[in-house]
Every structure is written in C-alpha cells, then in structure tokens.
C-alpha cells in the first residue's frame, strides 16, 4: 500500500505534464471545439513519446494516471479509449482514434466521427469494427468532445473478440470514464476556486464567504475521493465492483461539481471566454455515458450483493 508515486511513475508523469502543458490546455480545447476537431497533434505527440502504450509496457495504473492527467489538461482526445480500454481487448493498440460504442445505445458517440476503430459492447461479447476515419457523420454538440453518429447496422457488425470480452470492455470503459470524470471535475473545481479567490463583490473576495467555501470544500472532498477510487481500481485491473464504485462516485461528483462551479461563477461561467465550460460541459457528456450514475450504482449492487455475486 503506497499512495505516493514511485520513481518511474514520477518520471512518466513529469514528462506527461510537460507535454500536456505545451500541447493541451483550455485555450487549445476552445480552438478545437470551434472547428469540431479531435486533437490529432496531441495524439501523435503522445504516441511518439510512448505514452499511448503505457498500459502494456508499464501497467494499467500508469495508463490510468495519464488518462486522468489528460482530462485535467482538457485534452480533446480519445485517450481513455486508446490508452486504457483498447489495450485490455486488443493485442495491438490501434494507430487510429478509437470510439467506444454500446450496441443498444441510441445517442451520438464520442469521437466516432474521427474513429478508425469502434469497440462495441454487445452483451457477452465485444466486437471490433473497422471504419474509415471520417466516414461517420459528425453530430453537432456543445458538450466538450466531438461526437459522431454510429448507424444501427455498424453497432451490430464486426469481429467478435471472444468469450468474456463484452464484460471486459464494460469494466475498462467504466474505469476510463471514472478517470476522465475525475480529471475534468478536478480541473473545473480548480478553475472556479481560482476565480473566486480574486473575484470581489461587497468589498471582499467571494471565496471568503463561508456559504461559498463549504460548497467548494464539499466538491473538493468528492473530487479527491473520485481520483483515488479510480486509481485504485486501475491498479487492481479494473474489477467489476471497484470500477462501478469509481464510476458512480465520479458521475455523482461531476453532477455536483457542475452545479456548484456554474452557480458560483455567475454569468461569466456560461461564456466561451472563461475556461470553466471546457471542463464542465464535458462533465455532462461523460456522466451520462454507459447509463450514468444509476446504472453504475445498480452494477455495484449486482457485483457485490446479488445472489451468486463474486
């Protein structure tokens, strides 16, 4: 048991942070959003530095640390799917964007318009569908990641990845979600805390009002817990109960962080000139994925307490 980074992890994260500070960040996310683009440059830089293969070359925890950091840095990229989920299912990490799809899902899918690989969760199996990147129709949306439309026929096609693959896909997908939610929640909260330290009304910093402080403090407790729960689950190889706990906790946290950061930022929080929306709008998208918090919560109960649970 050790919550501190070891030397290798520290070295990895140091270079990840340098790379992200140069190539990601809210300003870039805003520019990409205006064009509806995915960050191909960032993907290339991460791949060249070897970070997209951390899961196989070092371990899932290290890949998880990357995913969380990327979300905190507002990376507009399928980094969770590519660095964490795909390696759990495929022998080779694809060189193209990966979109995660639920066979029974109806809505638009994150990153699908750019994806070269779809990983489809269809009951007991997962399926691999190769598509021409750019062939799926983009769906206009203001929730952070570029979305695309995956036709029903594609959701039902592809190569089955073997016994247990459906469940494996869901577990790692839940984990990636928990990490992205946690990173984005942390960044949204930090943005608002920084703003409220300098924004003054009634002759004092708004962040000095206790009614405001307690709400922010409660958000901080939740974002800290979300991060540790997700990292723990990654270390243990994404077991069903742990990833459901991490995802449910992170999704509930996201809802609370969205509500509080927007409320406490006032009107500026709704503008594209303030960074908050880069993180917060994404929270709404992420927290709905895979059925959202209620589905994660039911999964916890099924995993832990149902008849014949492991």
């Amino acid at each position, binding site marked *: *048991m050790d919550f501190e*980074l070891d030397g290798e992890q520290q070295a990895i994260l140091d270079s990840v942070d340098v790379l992200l500070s140069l190539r990601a960040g809210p300003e870039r996310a805003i520019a990409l959003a205006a064009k509806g683009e995915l960050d191909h440059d960032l993907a290339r830089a991460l791949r060249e530095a070897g970070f997209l293969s951390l899961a196989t070359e070092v371990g899932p925890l290290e890949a998880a640390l990357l995913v969380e950091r990327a979300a905190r840095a507002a990376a507009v990229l399928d980094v969770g799917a590519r660095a964490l989920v795909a390696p759990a299912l495929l022998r080779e990490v694809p060189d193209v964007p990966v979109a995660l799809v639920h066979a029974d899902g109806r809505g638009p899918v994150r990153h699908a318009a750019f994806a070269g690989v779809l990983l489809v969760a269809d009951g007991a199996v997962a399926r691999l569908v190769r598509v021409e990147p750019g062939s799926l129709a983009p769906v206009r949306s203001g929730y952070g990641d570029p979305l695309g439309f995956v036709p029903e026929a594609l959701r039902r096609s592809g190569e089955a990845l073997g016994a247990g693959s459906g469940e494996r896909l869901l577990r790692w997908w839940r984990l990636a979600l928990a990490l992205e939610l946690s990173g984005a929640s942390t960044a949204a909260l930090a943005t608002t805390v920084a703003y409220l330290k300098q924004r003054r009304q009634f002759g004092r*910093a708004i*962040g000095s009002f206790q009614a405001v402080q307690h709400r922010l403090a*409660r958000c*901080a*407790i939740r974002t800290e817990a979300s991060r540790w729960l997700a990292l723990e689950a990654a270390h243990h190889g994404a077991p069903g109960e742990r990833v459901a706990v991490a995802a*449910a*906790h992170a999704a509930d946290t996201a809802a609370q962080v969205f509500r509080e950061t927007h409320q406490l930022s006032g009107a500026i929080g709704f503008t594209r000139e303030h960074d908050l929306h880069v993180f917060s709008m994404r929270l709404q998208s992420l927290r709905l994925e895979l059925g959202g918090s209620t589905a994660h919560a039911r999964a916890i*109960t099924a995993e832990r307490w149902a008849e014949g649970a492991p």
Partner: protein
Amino acid sequence: MEFDWSPQDEAHREELRRFLDETLPEDWETISRDGPGSDAQAGFSREFCARMAERGWLTQHWPAAYGGSDAPPWRHAIVGEELWAIGEPRGPQYMNVNWIGPAIMEFGTEEQKAQHLPRISRGEVIWCQGFSEPEAGSDLVALRTRARREGDAYVVDGSKIWTSYAQHADFCILLVRTDPEAGRHKGISVLLVPMRTEGITVREIPSVVGERYFHEVFFDAVRVPVSCRLGPENEGWNVVTHALQYERVGAARYARAALTLDRLAERARERGWLEDPHVAERLGHARTLVEAARVLTYRVIDQRAHGKPPSTDTQLARVAGTDADLAVGELALELFGQEGLAYGSFADANFRLAMTAGVAVGATEVQLNLIAARHLELPRE
C-alpha cells in the same frame, strides 16, 4: 503508487478475524447495541483488551520501548477496521491506544510514562476526554475550567460536558485554563486526572443515542498534583492539536458503515428487495460513500506511514466518513420502514450509532472551514 496489502498484513487480518470469532461472546450484538460507553461494552472491554494485550496486539503500533512492537501504521489501521466494524470490543479503550498513549509518549515525563503506558498497553484502564464545556464546543479554546497553582498542586474548578465514558473512566485527560490573562490559544494546560479524586462528580445526561453516551463532569476545588500536568504549562493547545489529528481518523467509522451496509444488503436480498431497482441504486450509492471514506482515510494512514506531518487530508477523510455513516444509517431506517423503529432492531441500533457522526469529534462545518482555508486556500473574511 500501488494499492496492495502486504502478505503480512493480510495474514494479520485473517488471524485477527479468527481471534474475534473465538473471543466474542454469542450475545455480542446485544452487548454492543448501545455503543462503546454502555456498561456492558465498557465492562467487556477490560476483558477483551487484556486478551488483545496478551497477544501483543493492543498497542502493536507503539514503539517497543513502550510495550509495542513498532508495527507500521497500516497494521494498526487493520486492527481499527476490524474492531470498529463489528462494534468496537475495545470499548472506550480505542482512545487510549490511538491517541492518549501516543500523546503521553510525546509530551509526558518519565514518571507519567511509567505510570500510564504499561496500564494502557495491558488493556486495564479506561480514560475519558474532558475537553468540551457548555460554552466551549466547536470553539474549544473558549474553555474556562480554571486550574490555579497552589504549591505543588493545581486546584481545578469548573465543568466539562458531553464527556463520553466518564462514569467508567479511571482517568481523564483534562483541558484547563492555567492563565486566563493570556491570549485564547495560550494559557491552556493538559492534566492527567484520576477520576477518583475528591471534588469530581459525574452526572449522566440522558440521551436518545444510547446508554452512558453523555456526561457532565463537575470539578469543585479538585487538587491535582503538578506532576500530573502533560507538557509545559500554558502550552496545552499544542498537545491537544497534536492529539486530535490522531483522533479524527482514529475510529474507522467507514469500516463500521461498510459492514452495516453489507448486512443491510444481505437482509434486503433475503427479503427480495434487491429486485427493486430503486433499492439496488440506493445501496450502490451508499457503497460509493463508504468506499470514498475508506480511500480518503487510507490516504491519511499512508501519509503517516511515510512519516509526513498531518495535513488537511484528515479533514477530507473525516467529512467523507461522516457522510457515509449518516447515509448508511438513514438507508437502514428507510428500507426497513417502521419496522426499524423498534428499540434494538438492526435499523435502530445502527441509526443511533450513526446519528452523532456529524457532531462528535468536531462538527462537520468546522472541518469544512479547515478544508476551505488550508486545502483550497480560500481567503478569510
């Protein structure tokens, strides 16, 4: 970073569980239904702690010089989890081993160490904590119980309130004001007072929580030898802040909440309630709170294991623990409905144990103030 228990820790947990199976009496659930301060549980603690001590487990995290075996903080955390989860068979003595003993090691004279530490580590003594006063709750430094120096003794006048375990206690770790002229945080001292000293009276305050939960302790010209003072005169606040950092996560509340939730889910399954998706969601959400409290507490233990000074992570863990406890207590009542109202029923016993979580050991709002100031570094008024 890695999150595995060492094989030794795992083995210790197993051994401890076997020991508990063998040692706890059949009617343990009944003994423990009114909390660690009840006559039944405090009485049992003397027997139980002596047996823990025989195995060298009661104070294993203490230094060898004081009757421990220098076990790492994680080992002690396992003991806390296992014992607190099943209702704390150490009774009030968990306080002794968690922070009163360590405070004596840190600040005590050789004579005090020799007098108190062996008795604590043998499990034969009960302490109470005389901090809060009628006018000094969250604002503890407002305390007014006065200790005047008269030769080689202090004469103590005043009263303490909410004092858990006072009726069973052999000693009290008492906060007094030795210099009323000094600033708020100055002029406070700590005394280690035998409860059977003339001039001390204890009155139980009847409560809805359980038996012997709260007491008032009155001090009427109580003479306490100066040799009973812990740490330097007028510097008691340092001693206390040090001690409280350990207390705030001392009781593994999340472990209790986790076990209660498991038992609740088991009963829900037996009655077919798990089929109801709403019930399944409620249980799942409660589990996220319990797990959040656990992992935040582990973070605090980890800092201790690394020899780092206490940080506001303690407050994060504490509020999360409170939330988990309250959520599980409420859920038990809600799922059982009016059935849970019967005294001593599963829902009732657990709800009563949980209901004080947000106030005991420093109210939630005060923790949130600290998180805002020190963790988020938000400006003061």
